[in-house]
Structures are given as C-alpha cells and as structure tokens.
C-alpha cells in the first residue's frame, strides 16, 4: 500500500505549489504514471480522495496519463513496445534492453482557483 504514502506526498507537493501561487483551491491535478512505473493508478486514485480530505485539493479531479512502455535494445538499437522489465529485443533476441519510457511518475500540472 505504498500508494497511500505516495498520495500524501502528492497532496503535500500540490498544496505547497498552490499556496505559492496564492490559490484558494486546487480543482485539478494531472499526473503522468508510466505503465511500468510500479504504481497502480486505480489504487492511487482511491487513496488520493482519502488523503485530500481537509486540504486545498479536497475537490480536485485527478487526471492520469499513462504512457506506454518503450524499450531500446542495447545491442542493435531497435526501439519497440514493452510491457515489463523482462523484455527481449524482437530484432536480435538480446536481453540487454533499456527502458526509455513508461517509468515516468510525475505531477504534470495543477489547476487552481484563486
């Protein structure tokens, strides 16, 4: 259940930013959670609504963009979609695959009301 502590740290970060901007309320939070980042978006959404109670983000709508995983072969350089870390290059069968996207876990933006 690391999603709960993650939800709390998201609230902390967006509240800090919103206060800096003089906002009275956060109405939206946009996250980027890569498909292979190790985070369950559904679980995080559930925790977020609980963690947001009594904060500026209490009514915030959580939007999650989930970029697909992309691997790059360390041997032949081919790029291809991956669904997890144990990817095999479809071109040369190499296992030396570097994940180049899909591991993102970002607070992209927030929407605030003054």
């Amino acid at each position, binding site marked *: *259940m*690391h999603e709960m*502590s*993650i939800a*709390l*740290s*998201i*609230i*902390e*970060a*967006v*509240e800090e*930013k919103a206060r800096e*901007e003089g*906002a*009275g*309320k956060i*109405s*939206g939070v946009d*996250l980027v959670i890569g498909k292979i980042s*190790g*985070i369950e978006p559904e679980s995080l959404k559930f925790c977020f609504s609980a*963690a947001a109670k*009594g*904060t*500026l983000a*209490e*009514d915030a*709508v959580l939007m999650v963009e989930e970029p697909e995983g992309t691997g790059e072969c360390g041997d032949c350089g081919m790029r291809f979609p991956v669904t*997890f*870390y*144990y990817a*095999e290059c479809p071109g040369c069968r190499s*296992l*030396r695959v570097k994940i180049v996207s899909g591991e993102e*876990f*970002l*607070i*992209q*933006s*927030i*929407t*605030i*009301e*003054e």
Partner: protein
Amino acid sequence: MCDTCGCSSDGGAVLRKPGESDYHVHVSEGAHGHAHTHSHSGEELHAEDHHHEGHHDHGDGSHHHEGAVRKIVLEQDVLQKNNLLAERNRGYFEAKNIFVLNFLSSPGSGKTSLLEKIIPLMQQRFPVAVIEGDQQTTNDADRIHALGVEVIQINTGSGCHLDALMVNRAVRELDLQDNSLLCIENVGNLVCPALFDLGEALKVVIISVTEGDDKPLKYPTIFHEADICILNKIDLLPYVEFDVAKCRENAMRVNHHLEWFEVSVKSGEGLAVWLEWLEKRLVRH
C-alpha cells in the same frame, strides 16, 4: 495515538533502541504537516454541496466561483522529496566514506540471519552499524544488538517500507564512524520498498529456495531496482521444488546487471564468495 508517550502522532514511524525502553523518537515530528492542515467548517459544508464525481464543471450555474482558474505546470517527480532527501543521505555517507547496503526481501527469507552471520566477520575489518525496519517490535534490533554493534530500530507502524526521511532521522541517532559499513534492513516486503531510494550505495534483494523460482517475474520491480541478488537457504534444495538455474535466468531477464550469489546462512555455504565480493567493494569504495 502513540502508546509510549501518549502523543497524537497516528501511524507515523518511531525510532527505538534495544535495551533502552524509554527511548523513542517520532520520525514525522515537524516533517509532515500535510494531513493536519486546518479546515474551515464553512468550506467543508460548501465542499459537500458538489462532491459528486464526474460533475465538476459547475455547468448547472447554481454555483459561481470568484477569481480566475489557472493551470500551473509542475513536471515534478512525485517522489522528488524522498529522492532529494535520499541524495542528502548519500552525500553524508560519501563524506564519511560509509558504505551503505539496503537489504530487501519478503518476510522470512533470512535478512536478519544473514546480517547475524556476516557482521561478526565484517567487524574484524570495518566498523559496522545497522538500521532495522519493521512495522512493530525491536526483535530484529535486539538480535543485532547482541552482536555488540551500533543498531537502531525503525518501527514504521502502518507503513510498508522505509523512506529517506526515516533513515535521515535514524542516522542522526546513530554514532556512525568514518570508513564504516551501514546495513539497512528494510521492512519485509517485495513490493513497496523498491520505489524508495534511501541513499544507499547498493540494493541487495534476498530470496530463499522455499519461495518459488518465479519470484523475480512475479515481483519484477524490486529485482529491476536491485544491484545484488542473494539466493538463501540453498541447504534446503534437496527438499524443495526449486530450479536455481531458472530462478537466476528469471532474475537476469528482469535485470541483466544483477550480481548473483547463492548461499546458505545456516550451513555457511557460499558466504565466503559473497563476503569476498563485498570486501572488495568496500575497499574500492
């Protein structure tokens, strides 16, 4: 409520020391204000008015907000706070030339037993200190304390992993020596600890032959993050269905940089190889 001092810290991590029943420090004191921000009752009523999910555009005109709506781009790593603090820990460790290992595994695969076995041997060469992570009890710290090394217990309460803040606080309570080895035993859990950098030099994941050789595929994140994998309890191989070669292959598929060791903490088999490797890293460090 804290059952030791009666303070209202609910669910936060607590530091404890073996043999010092009065000693306890709350990690979260003054560090996490988020859950306790003041809410104004008037606003709460107002919030309940339109708390229906999916109807957030106020299109019915019944309610109008004053002031502008703005979008602010953050592009900030969600774990940024933890990662920054982990880097601070790392800087401190580098300055004092402390080599830090973060031990990860499911409960019962032999993290504490491994430490009990290697610490007396390492102690002859380097000063050793230990941070123990568990939800409750100082049982593990007591076992390490019996070896005569500096040890502190982090009780995470409801928490499922250690984070950089807990380690930062624990380190302040320890008398760490220069040119030493610090072993951090994370909470027994193959999922959550993978995401939280503590400032360690290396992550060591331990699995045992009683767990199934597909563990690296079932819990890939932690194997992907680890630098070293230790297969423990190999003395039990004759009695269990466990294919060592297959397990190793599975681990390598998830992380081809993984250093692989096979040991039995009980019989001592394979420990010399891993210790030799560790000593080389410590000297080079």
